[in-house]
């Protein structure tokens, strides 16, 4: 296996594009090294992106935020400005694994590993995050919900690498939140999860995005769930409609972590709880 540690995004993209064999990106390694240990993957080339300055930076201002692809969860959890604007995105990223894993894991790695249960993804999609993708010759920006196409699969072409995630400008009276269900308090993959991002106007929900995780091959943006709560202050009826819309949007499987029945039921429960937190963070009163 060859190991390269380029210092620019372009170099990384070029290395990936030119590799005839199996090329993998190494950020935190918390998915890649696990797969290598379990003999699920045998890379011919590993491209370490942690020495690329463009991928290490976090900037957060009133105009929006940009988080480099190599930024570890622990760094996100220390960034006060980012936590203030996007508490849901940060708490989702900070739920990926233990403190040890947080010292290494990245949101972009979590995204590109493309597990249906990835923690950072529902919150990013709910936030309207975009991915800056760099290829050998060109750059493009794509909504995060377009990145994952199926379990373990992304829409990135060979030779493309995500350089950073951008989060949009945050209107006042906005709030986001992320919750997941795990049988233990820590160390589990989400059985089902929900990310909600909303904005209020005069105390009433004006815009909303509701995303479910671990209930379908990819995270699911549920427009009907958003519709259920827009125009409301999260009264009982709106919450019931929210839960029902979420249950209807589920397409989960039975596996060693949960059953279809369980995931469908709890998706609605979590969406309601997450919406309430986002609502309160936006300044709404329940």
């Amino acid at each position, binding site marked *: 296996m060859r190991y390269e540690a380029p210092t620019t995004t372009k170099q990384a993209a070029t290395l990936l594009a030119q590799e005839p064999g199996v090329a993998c990106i190494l950020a935190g390694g918390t998915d890649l090294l696990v797969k290598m240990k379990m003999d699920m993957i045998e890379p011919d080339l590993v491209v370490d992106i942690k020495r690329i300055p463009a991928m290490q930076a976090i900037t957060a201002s009133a105009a929006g935020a940009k988080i480099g692809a190599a930024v570890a969860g622990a760094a996100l959890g220390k960034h006060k400005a980012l936590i203030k604007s996007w508490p849901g995105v940060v708490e989702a990223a900070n739920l990926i694994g233990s403190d040890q894993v947080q010292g290494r894991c990245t949101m972009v790695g979590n995204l590109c590993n493309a597990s249906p249960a990835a923690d950072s993804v529902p919150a990013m999609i709910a936030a309207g995050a975009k991915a800056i993708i760099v290829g050998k010759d060109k750059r493009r920006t794509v909504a995060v919900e377009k990145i994952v196409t199926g379990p373990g699969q992304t829409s990135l072409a060979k030779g493309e690498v995500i350089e950073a995630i951008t989060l949009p400008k945050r209107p006042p009276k906005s709030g986001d939140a992320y919750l997941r269900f795990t049988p233990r*308090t*820590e160390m589990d993959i989400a059985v089902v999860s929900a990310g909600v991002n909303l904005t209020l106007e005069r105390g009433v929900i004006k815009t909303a995005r509701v995303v479910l995780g671990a209930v379908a091959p990819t995270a699911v943006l549920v427009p009907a769930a958003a519709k259920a709560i827009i125009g409301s202050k999260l009264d009982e009826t709106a919450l019931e409609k929210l839960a029902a819309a979420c249950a209807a949007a589920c397409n989960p499987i039975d596996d060693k972590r949960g059953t279809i029945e369980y995931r469908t039921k709890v998706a609605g429960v979590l969406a309601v709880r997450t919406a309430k937190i986002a609502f309160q963070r936006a300044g709404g009163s329940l």
Partner: protein
Amino acid sequence: MAHDSSYTDQKFNVIGSRVNRPDGVDKVTGRARYGADTTAPGQLVGLILRSPHAHAKIKKIDTSKAEKLAGVKAIVTSADLPDLTGGDRAMLDILENSMARDRALYDGHAVAAVAAIDRATAKKALKLIKVTYQVLPHVTDVDEAMKPGAPIIQPHIRTPGDDSDQPSNVSGIVPFGHGDIDAGFAEADVIIEKSYKTEQTHQGYIEPHACMASVNSDGTGELWVTTQGHFSFRNVCAALLGMDVAKLKVTSSEIGGGFGGKTHVWMEPVALCLSRKANRPVKVVMSREEVFRASGPTSSTSMDIKIGAKKDGTITAASAQLRYQGGAFPGIWGMLGAMTSFACYDIKNVKTVGYDVLCNRPKVAAYRAPSAPMAAFGVESTMDLVAAEIGMNAIDFRLKNAASEGTKASYGPTYGPIGIKPTLEAVKNHPHMKAKLEKNQGRGMACGFWFNFGGQTCTDLNIGIDGTVSLTVGTVDVGGSRASMSLIAAEELGISYEQVKTHIGDTASLGHNDTTEGSRGTFSSGMATIFAARDAIEVLKQRAALMWEIPVADVVWEAGSARAVGAAHGNLTPLSLADIARKSPTTGGPIAGHNEVVADNAGVSFASHICDIEVDPETGGTKVIRYTVVQDAGKAIHPDYVEGQFQGGAAQGIGWALNEEYIYGEDGRLQNPGFLDYRIPVCSDLPFIDTKILEIPNPNHPYGVRGVGETSIVPPLAAIGNALSNAAGVRMDHVPMSPPRILKALEALG
């Protein structure tokens, strides 16, 4: 027979004090050496090829390509491990489990092994070995395995009592009990009959199995291994490989957890076989996945429990039929379950029957009070149901029926002084019972029992020239027992704890010692230490008599010194142990004490636990809010480590109750062989675990000691089941009581 209160009143100098363990510094600095922490010159890496099928005929193993790979030094299959057992079926089972013979019997069963110069080469070599399998039908569920027409795991097994000579998966049917249960049930005002199921769990020790095997061409060999019983490993490995016992030296490394799972050999015979073939040391370390797939988890079970009682709370009859699967080889697990089921109670009419069943799963090994937790789940859950039906408090109902001294136990013997009633009284009066419960929280309690064992033990006590003492014991230290051994030696000799250093001797240094299991470590090695110390004291007295030139009858040993008694010797200054040791080269040479004993009459240990649990009614999620363990230790040699056993066992029981299970697919393959999806409790899952040590002395031990290590895993399953019932009104009958199962039960309530 009233118990001798002199044990309770016995004044100890150092026993019962909370000293620092002698191996503590090594363990907190990373210096301590565990199974994988060793190297040998020229060592090879050994890897094992394992069956991906739950049940398959092995038609052919073609190792030719692998043999040609540069760096491969040996490849072994069952052809390299001939049957030398001379008809000993139990030994042949061990051999077959270490390496499949004509069939792979479970997902993960070893079929071949390789020793190579490095890991990468060994991995490549495994991939080059071509095994031709003929997949056979498989069965992994205990009840399915008992049905007629189920795939047969071991064709030589016959159902006991069945004359038809039909191969069967039922290897044992063992009844216990006394009285007339039909008459007893007829007398009952209330009868509760219920069935329960528990899934398979693993001991979950953090250290995978590891060894360094080094066999020479002259038939001698060494094995460095993480084990609970290096003497037993020596006997087994020597027998399987056709080596002389005395020529195989087995050294136990520090052990990173065992709980019964390291009382059996797994890959050690294969490691020795590889080393013998390669004529070089071979290091074999299991991966975490291999530990789950191919070591010894505990049984999954199903059981039917029936308890009948009068309105006043007297149990008139109790019965249990318990079915335990032992994996692909016969075991005694059902039998143990049948023995422990009603052991806490004094019941006039009781009958239990334990079934041992084979299926296509790994060979079951002991896991801390083996078989008792499952039986206790069924019995203790049913006890609460009966109590509720009568309208009696759960603790009072148990107190009314609790066994005591003189009770004929449901499994046969008559109890001496025991602690079940005291633990129940202690629980009843414990502050935990008064703690306020919030919304969605409930409190449950349950009892548990374990026998504890004695067994063969051999100990040496050697006194150094400066009077410090080297104690060599043969029971592996799994939880801090070296400190207890040092305390015992210090107590007997009348010296300070710091003057004694306890070592675990290798097999070349001592006679046979049984495995550290059955909570026997402190009990047995402690007893042997006491007698070895008393043996040494006799020698010390003789030396003092020699030094003083007085009759030895006039010498006593007191407070760490020899004293001359009698008016004639009144002005002789006492000789300390150090004084006598210093002179030993001229008074007769090295001073030592020695003892071999088959320690007997280990006292049974009872416990009662209290658990508060909170349930999220919308998700079935649970949180253990508060937990208390009350257990009878007889005499706590080192209270910190007794508490540690209580807490550790309780934590394992909590994980078992709520989240841990082996998940098999339709294909008979284990789906969760890792710590990600085999979910043991993490630090944030648990509260502090309160403990209360009771001391009802065991009259058969010089200090009253009872084994304590195991009982604590027995009550949690039912304590949690009962707490869930009180929290949310759901009666769970399937362990683990995971969120999907709880939510389903809540929804069924409506």
